[in-house]
């Protein structure tokens, strides 16, 4: 009995000491660093942030950055607006512009782009629709297309495709399915003619024979997919913090670009310096296998420059769709003073 009790006490003691040690280390390490936080999605498009965090670029700027993971692009700007996080980095949706029109968020640097040669999102036709003659993206006019939600990036991609091929979103029937699994269910059930699907889903549909990939959004209509943003309040009151944050972010961005966005003379994407190391960092942060991450690495502009014309086009598109306040000035949603 005494042995048991001694043992239990010893165990408790060790546990207590371990807890103290665990609680103590980061606090000691983070001393003198300014605390800040960013909302991200566990996707390869957040890669530059994961790299900057893992390789200590934020710490070099004197920042202790807490990464808060979110599950949908809609939630991140809301968290920035409510002050739960200082920064956010995700895809741009109509919801983002509505928050921007109320002065809650502003873009300060670019995230990923849809760019020729980079396969992020595909137009996929069902087998039946393909057999009936749906063979290229331009044929999507007049078809039924499943999207996630009204105001999503997929919604804008359909609009962009229309702008290129001379039709409007009124010429297609968009069916809002709320999320990707339901979108896939509608696709497999033959309820729609096509979907715009993320690369992993598109490849899976093609591999199992239920769909045919018609083309890639990056090849068809390059556009500014996402951005790094913060609240105008942070810019006004804590500008030095924002500048340091952007500086570390751009270091990660440049490294990401060098490793994953390099092309050879023929235009094919090749492995750049540090490829394996950076891929391992992103794989760990997104909790996915490296080969899965490698299949969908988006393009980033190495200096973090936004495609200003496309942002203006996005705002105009949502306004013409009646989903964003007509009074919003497109230039007011971005602050171009951080990225030179």
């Amino acid at each position, binding site marked *: 009995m005494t042995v048991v009790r001694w043992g239990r006490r010893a165990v408790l003691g060790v546990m207590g000491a371990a807890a103290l040690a665990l609680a103590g280390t980061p606090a000691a390490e983070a001393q003198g660093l300014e605390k800040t936080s960013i909302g991200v999605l566990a996707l390869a498009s957040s890669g530059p942030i994961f790299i900057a965090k893992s390789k200590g670029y934020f710490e070099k700027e004197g920042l202790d950055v807490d990464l808060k993971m979110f599950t949908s692009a*809609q939630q991140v700007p809301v968290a920035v607006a409510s002050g739960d996080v200082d920064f956010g980095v995700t895809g741009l949706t*109509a919801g983002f512009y509505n928050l921007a029109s109320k002065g809650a968020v502003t873009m300060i640097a670019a995230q990923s782009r849809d760019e020729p040669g980079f396969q992020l999102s595909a137009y996929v036709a069902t087998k039946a629709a393909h057999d009936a003659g749906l063979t290229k993206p331009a044929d999507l006019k007049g078809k039924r297309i499943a999207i996630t939600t009204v105001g*999503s990036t997929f919604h804008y991609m359909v609009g962009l495709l229309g702008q290129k091929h001379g039709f409007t979103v009124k010429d297609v029937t968009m069916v809002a*399915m*709320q999320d990707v*699994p339901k979108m*896939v*269910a509608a696709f497999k059930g033959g*309820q729609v003619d096509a979907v715009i699907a993320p690369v992993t889903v598109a490849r899976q549909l093609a591999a199992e024979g239920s769909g045919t990939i018609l083309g890639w959004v990056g090849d068809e209509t390059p556009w500014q997919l996402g951005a790094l943003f913060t609240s105008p309040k942070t810019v006004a009151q804590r500008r030095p913090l924002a500048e340091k944050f952007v500086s570390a972010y751009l270091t990660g961005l440049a490294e990401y670009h060098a490793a994953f966005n390099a092309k050879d003379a023929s235009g094919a994407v090749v492995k750049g310096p540090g490829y394996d190391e950076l891929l391992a960092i992103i794989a760990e942060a997104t909790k996915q296998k490296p080969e899965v991450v490698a299949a969908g690495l988006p393009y980033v502009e190495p200096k973090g420059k936004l495609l200003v014309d496309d942002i203006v086009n996005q705002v105009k598109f949502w306004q013409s769709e009646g989903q964003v306040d007509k009074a919003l000035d497109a230039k007011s949603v971005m602050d171009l003073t951080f990225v030179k």
Partner: protein
Amino acid sequence: MPDTPLTGTSLPLQDRSPSQPVRFRGGGFTVKGHRWAALLAFVVLIAVWESTNRFGLVSELFLPPPSAVASALAAMAQDGSLWQHLKASLMRIGVGWVMGTVAGMAVGFAMGIGSVARAVGVPLVSAFFPIPKIALLPLFILWFGIGEPSKFATIGFGVFFPTVIATYSAIDSVPRNLIRMAQSFGLPWASILRKIVLPGALPGILAGFRITASIALILVVAAEMIGAEYGIGAFVLTAGNLMLTDQLLAGVLVLSLLGLTIGTVLSILERRLLKWR
């Protein structure tokens, strides 16, 4: 007695004259009609809500003031989209609820009366009731498509199980001695069912309706996740995705007004059908 004020040095009660009449104290928490109280509470709540925005305590984004919600609602009523949304949702709620209720009552009656049906049914209901219908939406899409049938099915399934439970426990609670008496008087089986079991179970079944009507309202939002263009649920989802908080609350307000209307209709129904009590 309560009218005599205690003046000067207050005397202990037992020192007063014993012939005094004793006030009736056993009132309990008697329910009295206070029509104005509920109305006043609403008015005060809305006034406080509006003033938090007017004085800049809360940003309009986080909690749109009632005036913004009202103008969003007015805009919907003006361009006719409100009726389009209401029509679509009411049709889905109506058809889904009736389907779920008819099937649920049939099964509930079978389980309440037949012991074999109950032996089979109780574990099955226990197994299927807790399945979240929203988790099944992708399957419903494959089975029923993305048209109206999958929406009816979502609401119908949600309504079915609570109706089964309400019906068979209502039948269970019909006084046994009444049934035994009717049996010993030699009443035919159908007559017992119609004259004793059905009226006896009706209060319980109607209480079940109250719950299932609310479940149908909750599920219409889930059902309209499935590629719905019109409908109050689809409207609320879109407003949420677009971060248009005033429209979001306007849609929620319509849903809760629908709930209030259905509740009132059920109260009238209860009063009519349960007059015999």
